């Protein structure tokens, strides 16, 4: 399968197979007018299978979202058809307005303009908890 290489844009590579669509949705890529390629189940020497997202536009992506979904992913910035920068991703300590607390008793369910903040509480288990009520984030 061939997908044209991009001139100016980003390639999110080494996404764990099956996580690509989740990233696509959370990054809001469906709202872009630029071409976006979502490639799933690509054969990978290191990972067995992986997903790749190619965006044919120089956009800013929220690295925290990528770090939350898959800290093993890499982000390649492409300029004039050349690799300009390769970013390694880490699991973010804090997520703001990415996850939403499902606890109906949480103050974030009713307080006006209060950010939805989740903090990393267990790196090994990839566990985030609401900064307000400490409810564990459910998988998205």
């Amino acid at each position, binding site marked *: 399968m061939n997908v044209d290489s991009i001139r100016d844009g980003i390639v999110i590579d080494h996404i764990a197979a099956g996580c690509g669509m989740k990233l696509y949705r959370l990054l809001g890529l469906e709202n872009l007018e630029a071409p976006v390629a979502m490639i799933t189940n690509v054969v990978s020497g290191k990972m067995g299978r992986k997903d790749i997202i190619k965006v044919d536009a120089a956009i800013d992506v929220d690295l925290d979202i990528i770090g939350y979904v898959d800290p093993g992913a890499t982000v390649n910035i492409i300029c004039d058809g050349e690799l300009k920068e390769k970013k390694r991703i880490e699991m973010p300590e804090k997520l703001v307005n990415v996850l939403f607390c499902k*606890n109906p*008793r*949480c*103050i*974030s*369910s*009713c*307080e*006006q303009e*209060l950010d939805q903040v989740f903090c990393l509480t267990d790196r090994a288990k990839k566990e985030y908890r*609401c*900064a*307000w*009520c*400490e*409810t*564990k984030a459910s998988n998205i």
Partner: protein
Amino acid sequence: MARSVIDVPDLTKEELDQLMDTAEDIIARPDDYADACRRKKLATLFFEPSTRTRLSFEAAMYELGGNVLSVTGANSSSAAKGESVADTAKTVSCYADIIAMRHPKEGAASVAARNASVPVINAGDGGHCHPTQTLADLLTIRREKGRLGNLTVGLCGDLKFGRTVHSLLNAMSRYEGLRFVLISPEELKVPSYVKSDALKKKGIPYTQTENLEEVIGDLDILYMTRVQRERFFNEEDYLRLRDSYILTPEKMKKARDDLSVMHPLPRVNEISVAVDDDPRACYFKQVLNGKYMRMALILMLLGLKGGTQA
């Protein structure tokens, strides 16, 4: 942003010890603290019902010579008009020197603290935190036992949803030589993340059992909580276990003479009234100790001293 206390981990172990020292000094020399908060105002914002906690805060401030501004019930405040917690905190900061707030929403006190320009004390935010109850518990244990370490502490009842239990576990896990006995039905065990944070990571030994009578003889402290019918998945289990978590004079016969029985109150039926006359019952002393710890906390957050510290 002023220094606030939303949860027990907001206080270091040294600060906990200092608060208990201050409380002990207040108990020994109350007159020396009678004017410590003169011209200071405490606002008690209670957006859900409370008897002990609100009165305890208000009594604490009056005994420090301060004044109290009080809001009770969401219906009697601007919250009824839809005012946010953030705006309420900013507004009340203009009138009071310190705020004690109870709110049904979890995390509300944290939002208030971020927006108030005066210290905020969390007087309970839903089922989340109730740090001043834990302060009362710690002082009670220290006064009854003379120490907070080297104790076998039994926690009995609803250990899953009981916020006072989780908070006490976290606070006590900072002291040495403790052993916990967790007594609860299967459905109401301490959540694994609480065990992990408070016990396993710190290497604190604990055992879990469903049977209070089997272990009551091993305990220095028995901290009772209420087992509520609605927490069970089926009625049969509730009926089967209900009576085993009611503390009676018969069960107390198996306990040591130096056991201290505690309860955060309100009690419904989990401790028989007949136990109240037992010298080992400490739950009403806990109420009184709560007032002294709230006095100490108000002084600390206002940066004031009294008694021998003045």
